[in-house]
């Protein structure tokens, strides 16, 4: 299938995000327009301070644009209140963080159930789903372990499984492999490739060219603006 045939699931329309620091204004994002289509595997790169995390936070509905529109599922996120924003995060987005961010006092299974808990969907079904996803990331036997009993790579796999629990529109990963050694990094990237074959949409932020090379396209940010797009792979992907 051609990329242009796939539906747009998230779209930035001239997004600005400005921080007021006393008298001067930091333009962390300064007019960004991007479309993310279902099945995309997009890497965001750029120098430190270029606005990558800011962009990802807005994509993840953790933050709102100062101006411009951010459309997810046909709605303009900029106009939603805090509760509605939480709702969108809970239903449509899967987060993967650099430092894994599992909740230390909960077991693997309980960590996996957190996203569904806030939608009142915890029950036997959520448990089956957690077991299935834990299996899929290779941690089916570690459900009752606490995060600190796992290695960094294993923790990140749990985090990926957790991000998939709510069947999100897309996964967002900020330096997901930044805290891992190169072998473990490769395992995680292989897992991403796996997910992509299942048409999971993935957006990653990275400093690492090797990581970015695994994505289909790379978006380069500079001073809060889109500098250029690299296409690493032919337009038609996914079987």
């Amino acid at each position, binding site marked *: 299938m051609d990329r242009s045939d796939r539906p747009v699931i998230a779209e930035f329309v001239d997004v600005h995000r400005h921080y007021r620091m006393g008298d001067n204004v930091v333009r962390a994002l300064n007019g960004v327009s991007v479309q993310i289509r279902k099945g995309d595997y997009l890497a965001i790169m750029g120098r430190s301070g270029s606005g990558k995390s800011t962009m990802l936070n807005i994509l993840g509905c953790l*933050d709102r644009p100062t101006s411009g529109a951010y459309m997810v599922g046909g709605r303009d996120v900029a106009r939603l209140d805090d509760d509605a924003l939480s709702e969108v*995060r809970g239903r449509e987005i899967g987060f993967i963080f650099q430092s894994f961010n599992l909740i230390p006092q909960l077991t693997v299974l309980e960590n996996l159930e957190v996203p569904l808990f806030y939608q009142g969907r915890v029950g036997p079904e959520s448990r089956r789903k957690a077991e299935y996803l834990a299996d899929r990331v290779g941690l089916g036997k570690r459900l009752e372990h606490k995060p600190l009993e796992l290695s960094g790579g294993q923790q990140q796999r749990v985090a990926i499984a957790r991000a998939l629990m709510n069947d999100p529109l897309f996964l967002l990963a900020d330096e997901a492999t930044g805290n891992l050694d190169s072998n473990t990094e490769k395992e995680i990237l292989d897992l991403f490739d796996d997910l992509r074959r299942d048409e999971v949409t993935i957006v990653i932020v990275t400093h690492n060219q090797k990581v970015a090379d695994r994505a289909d396209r790379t978006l380069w940010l500079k001073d809060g603006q889109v500098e250029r797009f690299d296409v690493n792979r032919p337009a038609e992907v996914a079987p």
Partner: protein
Amino acid sequence: MIRDFGRIVQLGMKSLLLHKLRSSLTTAGILFGVASVIAMLAVGEGASQAALEQFRDMGVTNVLVRSVKPEETQQSSSSMWSVLDYGLTYAEADRIERLLPRATVVRVREVQRGVMRGEAFRVTVVVGTEPSFLLASNMKVAEGRWLTDLDMLNQENVCVLGHKLAKLLFPLDNPIDQTILAGTDDRFRVVGVLQGQGRAAGPSGITYDECVFVPMTSSRRRFGDTIRNLSTNRFELTELHEIKVHLAGSDEVENAAMVLREMLLPMHKVRGDTEITVPLELLQQEEASKRRFNLVLAVIASISLLVGGIGIMNVMLATVTERTREIGIRRALGAKKKHIVQQFLVEAGVLSALGGAVGVALGMIVPKVITEVFEEKTVVLPQHVLLAFCISAAVGVVFGLYPAWRAANMDPVEALRHE
């Protein structure tokens, strides 16, 4: 919904267990507050119930007029053989009867004597009184009969024993129709035994259960009106030691008390050799002082629970700061502000409810120990326990509110960046 709440509580417990020492110390603040409140209430309630029962035993429809031995002056004590003359007279009892025609007037004389039967001996009080005594002091006959008008008329040498005295003098056999010796040469035939009464006592302070009762007339004839006081070795002339004025209803008490005060005051004011006791008034005073006591207690309780609450707030603020990142994660995973508020409120609630529960247990044990060690009556009322527990739980919620609000209003992005 219920299951979700159960999960939040479970989660709260887990988080609290992360800092066992800190959580237990915080809990202790509430614990001791609750325990001390319950214990104090129990002691207060016990004391007041004991007082109330005592006044009730005197009879709430009675007004008691008693003879009081006046302070001895230098002059009167100079002679061993002078007679100390004080107190109520037969004539006064008759006057009371005329003034208050609807009241039952019971005359009482108390004479201290050693009472003997076989080997058993006991110094006690021989109460000389009238048949109406039984009604006025709300006592009942256990065995045999009570004193009658005929006994009075014939000045019979019969007696009725108090419950304890009967046990003491006749541990094994039936006392009825046996003879006891009062003093050196006064014999009385036992015609009845009273039921145990408890605390009620005459002016001497010895409970009726330990007394022996004889007809008024016999007492006068046998012992005379001038009696040697066994403890001071002085002769005292007192016609009546007590006049019980028994009224038909408690609504007549106030008026009767007024009449009696007005009647007796001119005669006895100077020497102060009588006193009027109105159990109903004492009862009302006790109830009023109990209300005051409870108010003071409520203030102390609020202060101690306030201190506990501040402890909780302190710990919850620390917890919220420590778990900023967790809050960020939860927000990213779809938690709304209300979920975060819920989580930390429940945690604070669990903390204080736990303290409350243990405090209740401790608060119920402490009064038992007090009763055991100090022989002080204590009463733990269920409503006091419930109140203390509810207040402790409420303290947790109230003082958890601000920390929870702070947690919920963190910016998710900032929270996630927090180290």
